[in-house]
């Protein structure tokens, strides 16, 4: 049964549901529920999503070839069972956390991931605003360890698809807070709204895919606050809806900074340092500046990385 399950492409099955949920959200917002749309922004998001699918199909064979090559050199033979499905799903989500954190902290990966953050809106169409250059940025390498361990490629792909589907519904302002236990364990609309916020408080926080526990464990969790509602987008919001520019703007920024680099160190910073390093606007710098301006003390963090309220 598991053998048959993992041959399913869950994302392909979910696409009609994605469309239906976007229509429901559009109507709900029109009727006065919390949220917002702009047809131009939605258009860009959907075209980015469609382009991402096409790009994935174009380079999918090459990525699959690499994946199979790695799996052929696996350390163990992990069987296809319910327990391996569950284990693979959890480990894949941990891998997603590492990927996502890297995608915000390393400009090379950010050049691909920034597309997803380039909307100033936060709705279900934003979930579909995906990169066209994911394979070029080598983002798939974060899934290779699972194959090296020995999880079958079909299982890894299946778990990745389910992870992606889960992340769709959290891109909404319609849902306020989920039950407390759910907010404690799972990534939710509230946690992910904070992730998309460019308020200094929220920069480079909440990298989770499905389980928010990774952020709580590794000290990157930040709760959404009613007194500091997230402002969505990127530090320098794009001045156009042109999908091609959305897709390549950061890559061109890297090329420009590389061309102007006067040393190997500067060239390395242009490629691999945190985004904003060369302009003095990294997430850490902006947060420190905000804390200094507002007289906000950096929150103490306990051993688990969770923010500890001041006495």
């Amino acid at each position, binding site marked *: 049964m598991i053998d048959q399950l993992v041959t399913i492409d869950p994302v392909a099955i979910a696409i009609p549901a994605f469309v239906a949920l976007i229509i429901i959200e559009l109507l709900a917002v029109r009727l006065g529920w919390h949220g917002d*749309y*702009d047809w131009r922004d939605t258009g860009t998001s959907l075209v980015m999503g*469609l382009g991402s699918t096409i790009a994935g199909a174009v380079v999918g064979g090459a990525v699959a070839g690499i994946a199979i090559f790695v799996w052929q050199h696996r350390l163990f033979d992990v069987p296809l069972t319910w327990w391996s499905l569950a284990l693979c799903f959890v480990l894949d989500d941990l891998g997603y956390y590492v990927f996502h954190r890297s995608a915000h902290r390393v400009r090379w990966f950010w050049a691909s991931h920034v597309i997803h953050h380039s909307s100033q809106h936060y709705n279900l169409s934003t979930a579909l605003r995906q990169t066209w250059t994911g394979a070029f940025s080598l983002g798939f390498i974060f899934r290779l360890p699972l194959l090296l361990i020995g999880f079958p490629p079909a299982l890894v792909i299946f778990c990745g698809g389910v992870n992606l589907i889960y992340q769709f519904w959290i891109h909404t302002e319609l849902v306020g807070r989920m039950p407390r236990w759910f907010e404690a364990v799972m990534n939710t609309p509230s946690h992910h709204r904070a992730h998309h916020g460019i308020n200094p408080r929220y920069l480079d926080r909440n990298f989770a895919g499905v389980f928010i526990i990774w952020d709580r464990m590794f000290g990157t969790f930040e709760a959404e606050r009613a007194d500091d509602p997230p402002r969505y987008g990127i530090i320098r*919001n794009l*001045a*156009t809806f042109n999908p091609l520019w959305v897709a390549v703007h950061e890559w061109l920024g890297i090329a420009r900074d590389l061309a102007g680099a006067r040393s190997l160190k500067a060239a390395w910073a242009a490629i691999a340092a945190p985004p904003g390093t060369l302009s003095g606007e990294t997430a850490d710098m902006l947060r420190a500046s905000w804390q200094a301006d507002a007289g906000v003390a950096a929150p103490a963090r306990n051993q688990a990385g969770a923010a500890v309220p001041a006495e």
Partner: protein
Amino acid sequence: MLVFSLIGVALLIGLARLLGFARRGGLVDAGLAERLAVDALPGFRPCDVAVSRDGAGALVAGRDGRVALVRPLGDRFVVRPLAHPLVARAGAVLRVRPDEMMFPETALDLGEGAASLWAARL
């Protein structure tokens, strides 16, 4: 499959427009321009602002000498600190373009005196 996807995308965009999600952000409020600049630029403290009479954008000067351009994009706004912008004045209209690819020129109708003043400032 691609054709169906394209039709689906077009229908969703059309539905969003049909439902009225097609506002254009006009910038007629100096306070809003200042707030947007403060939100976008760390440490920015506005001391002067000039808003285009047609809502096409605004210039906000900071106490530290920086000047920010604020202009609408769809129903939102974009802000840029102006370093080495291209500036041209024709009477009451000041045309400003940041030194950045794909950032469109913004024509600000500031009035003759203000346009002259801000042109000198940039």
